[in-house]
């Protein structure tokens, strides 16, 4: 077991969680015969894609012992920026996408510079980011949604490749990218070291500040991709999009077994976490649970899943 490659090790470590997911799927399938249909499975995957993509970036930040509260607002800002460029400036769509992704990366990097170089607590830096990016999105659009986008966006949101919707492909793409980053590059190793013990990392010659700054830039990058996907799915961009997305993303990461204390965890667990949350939401809609009770059920199920995981896994999250 100890020699297992990273991916399997991560999945084995989250064995209890996987089991919880399987139990949920079985229960739902037995209540609703529509649950385990191919189209609903694709539906769930497509629905979690935005949250999962953000959560992959968040995983990197959290492994580095940070937190990024600004993702929801950044998503809105990148989304409306892309939409404004695509509708107003007459730029080719590919260029709009590139600009949007670079914008996300740069704004994330600004967070990262404050955390890494100015040494301000990540919670505060990204909370400031949360309000500032949201304000900027509202100022840019004067609070109005932007529609009338070129057809590229709805093709992105609804097109398929080999039978799978594009958002799902993009999600798996970001998953693999993040996995390779974390497990197979020196930078990824450095992120684990910095998150696990910053002082030890520093004394080992790891450029701690640069590594920290990178994690936030990566989170901004992932969030920008999620923004493009969401803009495609909605075929419009709202300055109010993404509210409370940070909580959903962090929940996926933490349910997936990555420790908020840093230095531990991985991106496959995050996928399971996002799936669990997605399946709960989907299941409640399918079963038409009344909206007041939905919140109670959702909290209870997540707690139960984690208890099962604790009972079966060896180490603490």
């Amino acid at each position: 077991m100890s020699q297992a490659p990273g991916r399997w090790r991560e999945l084995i470590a989250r064995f209890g969680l996987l089991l919880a997911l399987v139990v949920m799927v079985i229960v739902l399938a037995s209540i609703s015969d529509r649950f385990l249909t191919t189209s609903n499975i694709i539906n769930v995957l497509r629905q979690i894609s935005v949250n999962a993509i953000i959560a992959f970036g968040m995983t990197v930040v959290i492994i580095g012992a940070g937190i990024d509260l600004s993702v929801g607002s950044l998503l809105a800002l990148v989304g409306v920026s892309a939409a404004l460029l695509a509708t107003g400036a007459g730029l080719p769509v590919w260029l709009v996408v590139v600009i949007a992704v670079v914008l996300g990366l740069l704004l994330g990097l600004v967070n990262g510079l404050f955390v890494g170089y100015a040494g301000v607590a990540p919670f505060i830096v990204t909370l400031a980011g949360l309000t500032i990016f949201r304000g900027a999105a509202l100022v840019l659009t004067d609070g109005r949604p932007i529609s009338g986008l070129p057809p590229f966006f709805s093709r992105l949101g609804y097109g398929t490749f080999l039978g799978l919707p594009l958002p799902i492909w993009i999600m798996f793409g970001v998953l693999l990218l993040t996995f390779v980053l974390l497990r197979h590059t020196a930078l990824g190793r450095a992120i684990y070291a910095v998150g696990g013990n910053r002082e030890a990392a520093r004394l080992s010659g790891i450029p701690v500040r640069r590594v920290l700054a990178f994690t936030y830039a990566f989170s901004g990058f992932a969030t920008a991709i999620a923004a493009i996907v969401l803009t495609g799915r909605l075929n419009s961009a709202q300055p109010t999009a993404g509210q409370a997305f940070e909580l959903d993303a962090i929940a996926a990461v933490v349910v997936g077994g990555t420790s908020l204390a840093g230095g531990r965890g991985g991106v496959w667990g995050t996928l399971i976490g996002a799936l669990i949350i997605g399946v709960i939401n989907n299941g409640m809609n399918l079963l038409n649970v009344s909206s007041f009770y939905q919140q109670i059920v959702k909290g209870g199920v997540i707690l139960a899943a984690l208890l099962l995981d604790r009972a079966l896994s060896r180490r603490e999250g």
Partner: protein
Amino acid sequence: MSDPATAGAPPAPLLEMRNVTKRFGAFEALKGVDFDLYPGEVHALLGENGAGKSTLMKIVAGVQPATSGTLRVGGEEVAFRGVGDAQAHGVAMVYQELALATDLSVAENLFLGRLEPFVSHRRLAERARPLLEQVDLDVPPLTPLGALAVGEQQLVEIARALGQERRVLVFDEPTAALSSAETERLFGLIRRLKERGVGIVYISHRLEEVFAIADRVTVLRDGRRVLTAPLAELTPDDVVRAMVGREVLRFQREPTVRAAAPPFRFEYGGDGLAPGAIELRPGEIVGAAGVVGSGRNKLLATLFGLGGEARLDGARVASPADAIAKGMFLVPEDRKLAGLVLDLSVRENLTLAILPRLVRAGMFLDRRQEGQEARRWIERLHLRPPEPEKPVVELSGGNQQKVVVGKALATGPRVLLLDEPTRGVDVGARSEIYRVIDELAREGMAILVASSDTEELVGLADRLLVFRHGRVAVELTRPLDDKEVVAHVTGARQVA
């Protein structure tokens, strides 16, 4: 005792362990161990790193339950559910890994876990003073513990245990960061406890200490008890053979042939260190000695850019990164705080400082080469168990120390700064580390070793700097003599 049948027989044991086993997952750390302790006895517990000493004693202290076997304290069979239980039964332990809260004051740490419901910091400070005096530690009781040097923290930990009035006291390597002066003082305290009928378990890798203080010895090897006997019947060689199952040659170093290369000249000062300068020649091993708080660790930290002011050949050392860029590397004195990333594996820790060397195609890690590099150091330093994928947090203290040293040695710097490099390392592995250090010096590395172990310094160093009150009080050169060094360190001999 009044029973005629037992009259004249030894008194009832304070502590009796029978057939104790302990498993961590599939790994069996203790395999049916028996152990007992009598009132007024100092019972040494010895063994190589990872033999199971700390594990055994943590069962006694209620830190973790045994997987099977029985534990009797004062004749009563017990199953501790926590440290509090053990304390209630009169058992206290000085842990190998300091169990202190760095953000609380020294005084609070002395009474941690048994503070009165309402805390008056002033009264607490007053109650702390006598305890601190006992171990001769002169710090204001309300100082945050984190501001103390490791050796000083070790003294706090000892003072805390002494303040508890226990029937059974376990010392797990209490002197690993103490110099001979503090050790002598500790022995005085232990003798007084003995007279009062306290039973003491003493774990150490310094055999001369064991022979100086202990009455009986139990040796563990790979989780099994291999020997229990009165020390009077044994020689140090007997004990070492029982521990490692073979002879260990005491490391003897031939003085290095000086390389012709120019020396590294360091100037330093600030942060409690008097301004000064030292030169380290390639191929030379320089030692730094001193009592706890004398500033030898601070010297190394300062040279490495961790506070204070340091210059190498006139150029400022701004930060550890800068120091590394200038060809230095440091083994820090506190392995948990600064040396290891506990959640990462042995392999990942060993290669942490040489990642740039393992990179292919600009960013990807060459896993094969990384594995080779890790296995090389695991073998060389006798890591137990020799598993590269084990998280470092699950290693025994001594093995963790080997990982920190291995990581530093792997970098192959021009100037190597070693701060207590063998803290908690067993005899066998220690000579191995000495051998590697010697080899590196012969290859032209300049090495500065700070240590509280006089024997270690005498065995290794070409030159010895003795620190007192933040300055070099005297510089000694080969041949070095243990007694003379101790005299200088304690200040018994002053040189104008």
